[in-house]
């Protein structure tokens, strides 16, 4: 289109430069600080310009801390979270959109409601459940009086116990209990041509075949986008892994990173090492973003295909 958009393009360029500086600024400072020595920080506070100590600091992270192991945990948690979220969300969105069930609306509302309450404000009670996932069952048995009956017959009441704390499953599961994925998949399914569904039915495809042969391949980009987003949020989770993992070799890298900050007021944190840690810990997610960036935009475009 012929347009005299110089003013707009200049403005856009300016906006983007400001945006990029805004984004890169803190990252630069992180890197700059990470490349200074502890003594430098003691003397000057954080650094505005880079030094030459980055590899020393990074080496320190690898040799002196649990962060390398914890990055494996982060990988497991982020991957598990992303994978489970994608798969389970896909399945539930599938059920909600493609099946004639009266409860679809209710279930969708129940799932959607989870978007509104972050785990941070229900962490105490969530921890309780995680420490014994059967506690609701036990409570139910108690309340309904069933346990009384059982105790009468068998001598002891039922007390099921299964703690998922300090397990990878326990780190992942509460993160998966979230509705964003279902929401996104539902929106995406609604934009697929409906005749595709009918065509598959005419071809004799049942629900399972339709899911695997048609829906899954077509959802690839959405799947990828959601996967990346969930992976990243799983990787950067702080409070839940902090609470749910008790041993340092079960903790995630972000928690391990926060541990480098001393609690005692007398100590000045070793910021160069912490920042080097932050850099090390962010490498995997940043690499992921750089590689999969275009799927993000594609996968989230909710247009008629």
């Amino acid at each position, binding site marked *: 289109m012929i*347009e005299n*958009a110089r003013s707009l393009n200049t403005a*856009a360029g300016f*906006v*983007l430069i400001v*945006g*990029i500086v*805004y*984004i*890169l600024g803190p990252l630069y400072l*992180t890197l700059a600080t990470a490349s200074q020595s502890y003594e430098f920080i003691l003397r000057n*506070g954080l650094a505005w310009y880079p030094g030459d100590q980055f590899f020393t600091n990074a080496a320190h992270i690898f040799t002196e801390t649990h962060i390398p192991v914890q990055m494996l945990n982060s990988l497991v948690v982020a991957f598990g979270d992303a994978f489970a979220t994608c798969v*389970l*969300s896909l*399945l*539930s969105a*599938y*059920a909600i959109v*493609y*099946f*004639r*069930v009266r409860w679809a609306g209710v279930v969708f509302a*129940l*799932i959607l409601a989870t978007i509104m*309450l*972050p785990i*941070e*404000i*229900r962490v*105490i*009670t969530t921890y*309780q*459940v995680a420490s014994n996932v059967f506690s609701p069952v036990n409570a139910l048995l108690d309340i309904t009086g069933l346990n009384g009956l059982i105790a009468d017959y068998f001598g002891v009441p039922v007390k099921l116990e299964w703690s998922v704390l300090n397990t990878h499953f326990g780190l992942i*599961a*509460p993160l998966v*209990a979230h509705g964003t994925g279902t929401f996104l998949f539902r929106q995406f*399914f*609604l934009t697929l041509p409906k005749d595709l*569904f*009918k065509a598959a*039915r005419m071809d004799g495809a*049942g629900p399972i075949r339709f899911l695997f042969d048609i829906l899954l391949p077509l959802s690839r980009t959405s799947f990828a986008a959601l996967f990346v987003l969930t992976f*990243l*949020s799983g990787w*950067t989770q*702080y*409070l839940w892994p902090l609470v749910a993992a008790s041993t340092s070799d079960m903790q995630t890298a972000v928690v391990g990173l*926060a541990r480098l900050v001393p609690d005692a007021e007398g100590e000045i944190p070793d910021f160069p090492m912490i*920042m080097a840690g*932050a850099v090390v*810990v*962010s490498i995997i*997610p*940043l690499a992921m*973003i750089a590689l999969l*960036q275009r799927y993000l*935009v594609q996968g989230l*475009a*909710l*247009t008629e295909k």
Partner: protein
Amino acid sequence: MTSESSLFSHRWLPLLLVAPLMLLIALFFYVPVFQAFYWSFFLERPFGGGSMFVGWDNFARVLADPEFWEAGWRTIIFMVTASTLAVLIPLILALAADRKIRLALPARNVLIWPKGVAGASIGVVFAFIFNPFVGILAPLNSAFPSIWAPGIDGTDAFITLIAAHVWGGIPFNFVILLAGLQSIPKTMQQAAAMDGAGPWRRIFDVQLPLIMPQLFLTLVLEFTESVTSAFALIDTITDGGPGGATTLLVYKIYTDGFSGYDLSGASTQTAILMVFVVLLTAAQFLFLGRRINYER
């Protein structure tokens, strides 16, 4: 989508499909939420034993507590300003990155990076950036002493939090909004150009109205996201201070429950917050959501 009766009609399969997610959600969302509601009617001893039913007493206490209201107002102010900015700024960036200029491609990549950096680790950096003596505003401070003092002045601390929150909120909203902009049919822009609207005008008359669904989505998610992300940032940057000026409700709930062992009070506040957020989101869906669902 398709008319009802052509959908799959299975009795147990859809149940089976939603079961795993619903089970997780029931277990790790609804049970804890229910538990919180339950506790809000009791005076609960931290280590259990001797919990006492007190009816609405906790609610009465919380609602009579000026700190609660202050935190509540602060939360609303934060939600509104932070989420507005965290949508508005990515919106402006997305509009810019949607244009065919050389910077657009690198920007599309770089602007997503913060998503990979944990809020907790970036908090430290933001605290440094906004340090009144050595941070970027230091020159301002030496010209007008104490004009910028986030450690003393609550408003300044608030601004620091918002800047950090927006930083972390850019990627997701940027990606969603950019995707929305890119799915606007080209002819729509051309039609407006033929109608005499220049590129600036088209932003307001065509692009913005047409990405309302995406704007709505980001706004809804951002409202809750601002609550979540604020937590990590407050925890690392301000600790709720100075003088409680950045104690949002989430942080207050956390500290009341975590360091104050006030399970009942924390649960009561959680319950109230939940009701508030649910009502708010429902209202958003009702008032905003209805008006912007036009067919193309």
